[in-house]
């Protein structure tokens, strides 16, 4: 795995530190005179090292600009135009958005605050970056140490919206102005003037000077005392307190540097007021520090190493195929279980069917033919004595009808469906006056004795003849009745 290295550049040279799991270890220090060749040699000796350059140089410029709220594309063009208007004559310039604000007093429209930061003396940085370029080892990023003040702000409890933050590093004493937790201004006093016992006196003087400057810039309100947070080891707090007394304008507050470093996750022991280990640790953990170097000088972050990409691709392919194959194999297992269950059940059904077939006796006739013949015989059976019984009942009816005689009878049994019909022809008595009542009486009597209702009105008129013509032998009237006979 590639090692992460932080390169700290100040006016005394370049320090190389290795940062790993909260541990910061300084490995090399290259002076400006012979530094670039030594850096080139170091880069050659560490082909897998990933480097981030942190510039802590005194010649810096900070400009706060207000931009109208526009779309992203216009905003980029507007920032580039303002940056050109600054005429800073350096390629090492960056900007940072400080949020949106409205000029309440002027009643103006809301605007976006942009802080431009630049290194005025590019030569101090250029030689080192040229070494990276010549070695074909672009750094991961080039940042200004002042921007780390914003990373420290969340770790300072009770930090007011507007405050000064002071720390001491190898490059000197840096004083930064934080506005709402974001960097508004920073100034580095070189180490030559901030060393030794006079360091805290320098701190006091620089704080006053910076305060006056910021008042002149209308960045600080003079009506309130400005808090000044100074990162220092507890052993220096007494000297700091005596050198930096509070005044109506400034209120100094010492911050326990080792305790702060511990809160920030640094595992190195802090034995003096040098904040460099903490700054390097914060730089290694901060992901969104403004980039100072042009894009062409930086290592592209979005492109992973081809070997890594190929390895990830191969592993992804294998993992995806494993997941899909496992899913399919699990499904196949379930299908096989279902198939086995179906086979077991079908074998059981087949065995039961065979047992039932073996236990089924054979009929002498096909079952459906037997069923049909059985139904027919069952339906016909009630009619076996139908004619005899009907004749007896008819005889009983005629006995009750004096003078009425049977002339003819036709019995018919239709087989499908079985139904019997009797057509009866009766000869009426000779007295014509009684005929209408007699016929009704005959029908009622027949119905009473045989149980059959005449299907139609009896033909009671018979043949009509001339008075002198040939009549029946006895001249008696005939009637015919159609009687459906129900089974006995």
């Amino acid at each position, binding site marked *: 795995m590639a090692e992460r290295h932080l390169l700290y550049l100040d006016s005394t040279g370049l320090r190389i530190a290795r940062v790993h799991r909260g541990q910061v270890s300084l490995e090399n220090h290259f002076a400006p005179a012979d530094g670039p060749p030594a850096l080139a040699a170091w880069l050659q000796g560490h082909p897998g090292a990933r480097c981030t350059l942190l510039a802590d140089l005194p010649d810096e410029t900070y400009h706060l600009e207000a931009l109208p709220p526009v779309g992203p594309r216009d905003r980029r063009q507007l920032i580039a135009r303002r940056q050109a208007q600054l005429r800073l004559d350096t390629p090492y310039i960056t900007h940072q958005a400080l949020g949106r604000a409205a000029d309440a007093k002027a009643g103006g429209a809301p605007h976006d605050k942009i802080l431009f930061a630049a290194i005025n003396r590019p030569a101090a940085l250029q030689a080192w970056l040229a070494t990276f370029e010549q070695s074909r080892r672009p750094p991961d990023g080039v940042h200004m140490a002042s921007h780390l003040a914003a990373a420290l702000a969340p770790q300072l409890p009770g930090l007011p919206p507007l405050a000064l933050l002071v720390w001491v590093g190898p490059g000197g004493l840096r004083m930064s102005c934080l506005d709402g937790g974001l960097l508004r201004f920073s100034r580095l006093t070189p180490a030559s003037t901030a060393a030794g016992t006079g360091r805290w006196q320098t701190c006091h003087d620089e704080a006053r000077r910076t305060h006056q400057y910021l008042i002149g810039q209308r960045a600080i309100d003079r009506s309130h005392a400005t808090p000044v947070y100074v990162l220092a080891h507890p052993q220096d707090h007494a000297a700091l307190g005596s050198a930096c007394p509070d005044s109506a304008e400034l209120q100094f507050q010492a911050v326990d540097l080792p305790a702060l470093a511990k809160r920030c996750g640094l595992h190195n022991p802090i034995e003096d007021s040098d904040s460099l280990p903490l700054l390097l640790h914060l730089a290694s953990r901060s992901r969104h520090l403004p980039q100072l170097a042009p894009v062409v000088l930086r290592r592209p972050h979005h492109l992973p190493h081809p070997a890594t990409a190929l390895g990830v691709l191969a592993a992804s392919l294998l993992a995806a195929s494993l997941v899909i194959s496992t899913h*399919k194999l699990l499904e196949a297992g379930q299908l096989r279980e279902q198939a086995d269950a179906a086979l077991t059940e079908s074998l059981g059904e087949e065995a039961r069917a065979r047992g*039932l077939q073996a236990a089924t006796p054979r009929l002498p006739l096909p*079952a459906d033919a037997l069923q049909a013949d059985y139904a027919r015989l069952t339906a016909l059976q009630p009619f076996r004595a139908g004619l005899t019984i009907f004749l007896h009942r008819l005889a009983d009816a005629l006995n009750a009808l004096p003078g009425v005689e049977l002339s003819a009878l036709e019995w018919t049994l239709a087989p499908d469906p079985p139904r019997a019909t009797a057509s009866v022809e009766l000869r009426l008595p000779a007295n014509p006056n009684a005929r209408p009542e007699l016929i009704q009486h005959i029908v009622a009597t027949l119905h009473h004795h045989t149980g059959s209702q005449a299907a139609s009105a009896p033909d009671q008129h018979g043949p009509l003849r001339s008075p002198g013509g040939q009549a029946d032998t006895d001249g008696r009237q005939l009637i015919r009745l159609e009687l459906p006979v129900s089974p006995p």
Partner: protein
Amino acid sequence: MNALAPPLVRLRRPLIALTLSILGSGALLLWSQAEHDAADALLRQHTARLTQARATHQAARDAYTATRNGLRQLEALRGAGLLDAPDRQAWQQHLLKLQGKLPLDKLEWELGPFAPAATEADSPSAGPPSALRVSTLHLKGEVAHEGRLLPLLERPGNSSNGLFLPRRCRLAHKQPAPDAAGTPALAADCEIDWIFLPLPDAP
């Protein structure tokens, strides 16, 4: 080409790993898909077999039920004597005996042979063919009165085989002549079926 060679050399192992990964993944996917397809085909085959087995079992159950029902029907028919063939000779003797006992000189009959019972359902589309057999007695002639006719319409006294069924009968009274005392006065034309269900001989 030479400029490209060093990067390719550096990427040789990752490329080999990627190639092996592609090949392995492809083989794994093909094998798992083949296993899945085989299991799916097996399930379809066994499901079809199960469907067929269920249908066979249901058909066997239906056949068993129909057979048991048929056996009960045969027992009922046997109990009613409808499986036994009528004795035509006994019928003939019965008629001769009645003719000798009663004055039936003007009566003729014909006792037909056993033949398949023709039904309206005997058309090809009307279902299974009937196995019923029938012998038809055709009576025609004159008798003195209905009382002489009734014994002819009844089953022979000692026979209980078959179904004795008057199918058609036409009776007509003749006009009595003044000088014809004692002559037959009733014309009869009747057909009587004697039906039974013959069973084939057991093999």
